């Protein structure tokens, strides 16, 4: 067989695109010690590294190095050095065999390690997702349970809030207990613009006091727990305010209860 096809195989191989029987044949050829092909593969490898060098550098996230160094610091450095001294003491032929075997085994092992690593991370990601979903469900369940508990108390009343200003279709209910506080439930409330949140106010004797900020989900709903107040509340109102909330209302009234 002429050597010519191997020149082409070497290029495609260096690019990682050689597949099927040709790949197996070329690897056998390389393993057989063809110096010309080894050189060609090496040179193309350098060229392709140059292509990578041409891509604008980018600073990777800092946690990558921190994680890497943590892993590195827990491994024993002894193993590689032992291999080196073994090679020094071995006869040349045996050393070559060992080196080739170690190289191939390392190649195979590192491929599988990487694959297992990916699977482990994938599993971890699924678990994290599931835990997030569970936590969200638990939160919702706790809110619902709180509303039900409160409704079972005869002193609890339900205050209706009507939409006004920018959101006439919005509706709200405040399940309220003068001593225990309560929950605001809203529906059909438009989602907040960037940098804005809704803020609830409890108004006693004409004096509004902040009662927490909230946002609504994609369907315009929200359940917002409200702490008890010291003085009886006459009016509940919701305004649109800058993120983080403000000590006194500044934005338009979105929902308000009747006096």
């Amino acid at each position, binding site marked *: 067989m002429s050597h010519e096809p191997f020149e*082409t195989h070497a290029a495609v191989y260096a690019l990682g695109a050689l597949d099927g029987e040709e790949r197996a044949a070329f690897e056998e050829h390389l393993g057989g010690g063809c110096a010309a092909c080894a050189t060609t593969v090496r040179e193309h*490898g*350098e060229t392709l590294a140059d292509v990578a060098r041409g891509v604008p550098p980018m600073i990777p996230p800092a946690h990558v190095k921190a994680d890497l160094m943590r892993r590195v610091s827990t491994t024993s450095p002894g193993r590689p050095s032992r291999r080196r001294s073994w090679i020094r003491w071995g006869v040349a032929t045996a050393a070559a065999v060992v080196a080739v075997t170690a190289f191939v085994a390392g190649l195979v092992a590192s491929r599988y390690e990487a694959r297992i690593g990916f699977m482990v991370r994938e599993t971890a990601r699924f678990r994290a997702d599931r835990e997030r979903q569970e936590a969200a469900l638990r939160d919702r369940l706790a809110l619902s349970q709180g509303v039900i508990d409160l409704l079972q108390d005869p002193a609890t009343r339900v205050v209706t809030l009507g939409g006004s200003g920018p959101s006439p279709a919005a509706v709200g209910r405040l399940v309220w207990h003068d001593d225990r506080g309560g929950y605001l439930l809203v529906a059909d409330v438009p989602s907040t613009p960037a940098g804005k949140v809704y803020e609830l106010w409890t108004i006693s004797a004409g004096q509004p006091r902040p009662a927490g900020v909230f946002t609504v989900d994609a369907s315009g709903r929200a359940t917002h727990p409200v702490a008890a107040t010291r003085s009886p509340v006459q009016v509940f109102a919701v305004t649109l305010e800058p993120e983080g909330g403000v000590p006194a209302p500044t934005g338009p009234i979105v929902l308000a209860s009747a006096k």
Partner: protein
Amino acid sequence: MRGCIVDNRMAWAGEDLIRRMAEGDADACGRFYDRYARLVYPLILRIVGEPADAADILQEVFWEAWQAAARYDPARGSPEAWIVIRARTRAIDRLRAVRRRSETFVAPLDEGLAAAPPESGGDAAERAADRAVVAAMLDRLPEHQREAIELAYYGGLTQTEIAERLKQPLGTVKTRIRLGLERLREMMGPAT
């Protein structure tokens, strides 16, 4: 003595760092990372498209380099080629795994090839200029050669897949790759 080591830190060649890594020097591993992570991270990101995946793979690549340092042979390539080949291999393994799973073969690839990596701080204009230089370098290849090389380099396609995709005979694809790489080697040759 100690001062001497400090003075030489910046000057240490990649090969020295790999040798020290092989001896179990974690500090050398950190410096090896500092030296090459910025080179391979954008490449990995360009291949896999997802910053979170790219960060995962980046760590894996350097972790493997740390473990494989004793097997590094300078005769087989420069430290740069060594780490770039590892990075491409891992990124493409990931890309292929994702494609196998999603079974959406063509669409994500097209998006991936079209998408430029997201900006992450620094001088955007300068990077845009750098990118133009690279683009110019690959653009100096005949279109057919550039296309075949990019599909393999960034898209992780094998020669058979490239042939199917471009609806060209396999032999034609192989020749384009070989001629393209030889041309790139000539273009960049004097620098290496």
